[in-house]
């Protein structure tokens, strides 16, 4: 029984924190954008605009939900949830702190130590695309449909490299469990052993979370809103939240795989973990503020002709080195 309570508390705390962080990332993004564009951004609601996400949330809740006339109503309501749930659930295997002792009980600061952690994350993040495609299809409108099509085509061009980019880390650590991978980085973060893998993962991660310069499914300048053109009110908020949850989750994964997860000197592990996530989030925003969107065929060519060969080469090189030096 206490085990169950501990698990439930962990789930509540981790997911609550994830959603809260995701909500505040919208504020941070607007502030970072403003910084780059020599503006202030939201700084009116509360101290430095810190209550802005709450105000936005309340505003979205009170907005009217508009459903297109010929939309598939069930899928239209269901699709945002399909994107949000995997984005949240993928976080379950990411360790966000060391083992701590609470009330004389040893508690691992991760929700589930799955021994195929990476596969679990990839499976779920692949699921997220279904939400985008289904939402686009259910809208029964041309812009969302185009966004959805792009999303599915984009998926096949980077997902392979995404998986392969982490394979080097898996080969070095010899485990698929994220806890084991963090344990393997006690001396040296894998970013020093897998610099190419890190860069590849960084690029694929941006494509996976549909962020600029790979935000083709959304592409507001061409497709109005892409897959979520027809969405309004809380349905739209769900998509929005899912995007930011995805970003946070993938930042957490990147931190776990390449920067040593929660490891770090002086500060408590959870703080280190949050700092690393924030660094990745800042990178996301900084990149979005800088780069123009890639053209559709450019992304496909980049995915197949650059990312995939590079990641395969990286895997081969890692394997050869491991075998040669018998590591």
């Amino acid at each position: 029984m206490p085990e169950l309570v501990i698990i439930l508390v962990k789930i509540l705390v981790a997911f609550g924190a994830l959603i809260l962080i995701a909500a505040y990332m919208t504020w941070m993004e607007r502030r970072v954008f403003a910084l780059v564009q020599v503006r202030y951004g939201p700084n009116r609601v509360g101290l430095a605009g810190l209550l802005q996400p709450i105000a936005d949330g309340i505003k979205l809740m009170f907005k009217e939900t508009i459903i297109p006339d010929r939309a598939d109503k069930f899928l239209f309501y269901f699709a945002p949830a399909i994107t949000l749930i995997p984005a949240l659930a993928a976080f379950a295997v990411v360790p966000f702190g060391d083992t701590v002792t609470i009330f004389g009980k040893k508690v691992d600061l991760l929700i589930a130590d799955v021994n195929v952690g990476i596969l679990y994350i990839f499976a779920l993040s692949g699921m997220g695309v279904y939400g985008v495609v289904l939402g686009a299809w259910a809208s029964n409108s041309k812009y969302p449909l185009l966004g959805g099509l792009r999303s599915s085509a984009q998926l096949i061009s980077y997902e392979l490299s995404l998986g392969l980019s982490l394979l080097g880390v898996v080969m070095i650590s010899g485990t698929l469990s994220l806890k084991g991978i963090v344990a393997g980085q006690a001396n040296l973060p894998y970013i020093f052993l897998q610099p190419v893998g890190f860069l590849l993962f960084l690029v694929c991660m941006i494509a996976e979370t549909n962020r600029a310069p790979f935000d083709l499914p959304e592409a507001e300048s061409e497709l109005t809103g892409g897959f979520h053109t027809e969405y309004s009110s809380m349905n739209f908020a769900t998509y929005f939240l899912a995007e930011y949850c995805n970003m946070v989750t993938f930042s957490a994964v990147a931190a776990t795989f390449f920067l040593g997860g929660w490891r770090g000197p002086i500060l408590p592990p959870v703080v280190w973990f949050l700092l690393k996530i924030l660094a990745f989030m800042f990178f996301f925003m900084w990149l979005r503020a800088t780069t123009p969107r890639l053209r559709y065929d450019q992304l496909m060519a980049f995915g197949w002709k650059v990312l995939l060969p590079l990641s395969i080469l990286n895997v081969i090189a890692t394997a050869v080195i491991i075998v040669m030096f018998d590591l």
Partner: protein
Amino acid sequence: MLSEVIQGMWVTIKHSLRSRETVQYPEVKEEMPVGYRGLHKLLLWEDGLERCVGCKLCSAACPVDCIYVESAENDPGNPTSKGERYASIYEINELRCIFCGYCEEACPVGAVVLGNQYEFCEDDRDKFIYEKGDLLVGSMEEVPELKARYSEQKLLKYV
């Protein structure tokens, strides 16, 4: 391609260190430039008489017909203006006004001028019809912001 992205990111990070251009409006107010056309003002002479002689030229010049003037004969013993007549009613619909400044150009005695005030919000449309009492401000000497912009010669170009 990577070098271009890095170059671009260097540019954006440099920008983020600049001082920001935004004026935090309600707290910080920018000085309006000389020549800014804001809320109308009706001027007086230095001796306290109204400049406006009720000629309705401003009303005629107004491209959107937002000025309404009714004039009356001055009482010779106790004149309101220096001319034969004065404006008994002088109304400007500030919602309709496009702040083109033609009224001020048309005015032969330099009575109606555009000031540099731009904050006049109300919660009711009717409150935007400014009457003589709302517009009369005093003589040139008493309104320093106008003194910087208008010389007496410019105001009295037709007299």
